């Protein structure tokens, strides 16, 4: 699981959890992969992501080196900054570990790089309320 995915995942599917964000990240195995740098994509992503959550997640797994703790003002033209964000967003891959709901402490395992966000039937709201989100 890449940190870009972590940045947009929440645990609000759980009954009684209203925000469920950001999920606490515990990694037991991390792989750093090579992904081609696409400055346009990264700069498009920056306003869409929660930068402090990204920074904290990177820090919690020890991959924040080189990542500034705030968005650079001129980020669109700052290739060094974009490359640092690119690395953390797309190249740091959590192969195993878990994601922990900040409100309930419920853990969602990550195995073979795939997070399992399924909840048990007693953890969801009544069926007749249509959420679809």
């Amino acid at each position: 699981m890449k940190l870009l995915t972590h940045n947009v995942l929440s645990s609000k599917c759980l009954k009684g959890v209203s925000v469920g964000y950001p999920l606490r990240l515990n990694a037991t195995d991390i792989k750093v992969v090579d992904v081609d740098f696409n400055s346009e994509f990264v700069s498009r992503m920056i306003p869409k992501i929660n930068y402090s959550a990204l920074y904290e997640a990177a820090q919690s797994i020890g991959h924040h080196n080189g990542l500034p703790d705030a968005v650079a003002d001129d980020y669109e033209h700052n290739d060094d900054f974009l490359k640092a964000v690119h690395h953390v967003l797309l190249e740091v891959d959590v192969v195993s570990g878990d994601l922990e709901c900040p409100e309930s402490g419920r853990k969602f395992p990550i195995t073979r790089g795939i997070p399992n966000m399924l909840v048990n039937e007693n953890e969801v709201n009544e069926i007749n309320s249509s959420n679809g989100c």
Partner: protein
Amino acid sequence: MCAIASNIWQRYLLWFAHDLVDFRMAEIKSLISVLDINMRWVEEPADHPFWIVEVPSEECVKKLASRSISLRGVIELWAHSNNISTLHQQLKALNPNVYQPYLQPHLSFKVEVETFSNHLSLPELVDKIEVQSFSYLPIVGPVNLKNPDVKLWFMEYYGLEPNNIPELPYQYYFGRWITDGQRHLMKKFSLKTRKFIGNTSMDAQISVLMANQGKVKPGDLVLDPFVGTGSLLVPAAHFGAYVLGTDIDYLILHAKTRPSRIQQKVRASDESIQANLRQYGLENQYIDVVVADSSLPLWVKEFELDAIITDPPYGIREPTERVGTHKVPQITEQQAPTHIPSKIDYGHDHLYQDLLNFAAKHLKLGGRLVTFIPILRELYNEENMPKHPCLELVANSEQVLSAYVCRRLLTYEKVSRPSDCMAGERTFDPSLENFRDKYFNHCEDSRQVRRQKHYSNIGLRDSNSKTDRIAPESDT
């Protein structure tokens, strides 16, 4: 935007493959929009596979062909008529500026003949070139049949009914081949050679069509919430999108289901959606897949997508399921970590409403939702297709699966942002509810009825013994 080379618009012939005709116009319209192509029809396009269009420059049709999988190719139209002598007159009167650059001593050439709907043998085709004798064209280069620099096409169009062709063609076309469409992607992305496939992986042609309907462009973020084996992510990634998927089935995402290939006993250990993208050199475009229930909220509110391209389960070959139970759930703390959640049926009316709500919430403005919906043909009513106040249905193409069942590719565009408590109208379309039950029961009923009809038609009164054997095999 295509550069406008001159004020004179040029005429081109778009030659389509005669397959999935109902998807053709929708694809071209989507591509014109996403590639920002300026194009106009000379005549309103119909079902026939030759469309004459006008564009400001050749670059425009080349761009179109670089994406379209409906398109076989594009021809610079030199002459066209419903009458062969007029065609020759047009060619003779052709401005030399049009052909001179391509009819040079150093450029090899080939003349090809297409007789649409009328199958001719090779000698007959060669004969056509001889008989028609385009010898007045100042062709001076050498012939090269394998790899010519210039391909000239002569086409005859005999209508759409191969069993009922007229003596003379309806239309004649002559021109220079400009470029191929993307039909080669059908081979490149063929499921036969793909690493990881499942029972309901989407075939290459339709998955490319879906990516085009989604107006996918480089750098987009595309999600499939019923991802399965990721067959819809492949063409989206091919067109430059970054792709994400979710699925409720843990086993399929981890490639632990039974293999779909008959010769294959067990799945290889390295099968995965990511491996598929790697196979095509698209691994850079892969973000993640997540095991999750699409009926429940998963993403943060701000998460914004450029397109949602999906093929939800129909309940026939893959179950329609969501997490839930009809009993009072009792799971002890000890069981919880290893408990496999129980699932209940996820009715199509709920599923599509949830999908539209999701799209209205997470698509960017102008972003598209592309989804298939299975339909019993006789219950189809356009008015009953799922609706949402923020989404406009921009295309609706039918793929016929049997005499009774089809699926329709619906393309929605997000036209406004939802207010906080706005939800889709629930459309209780009779064909959306209990599709599975209807699918099976409907077929059984009609099979008998059909048999009776058949017997009465051929004038046989009793339907036993011998007559059973001559009854046509019913398609189920």
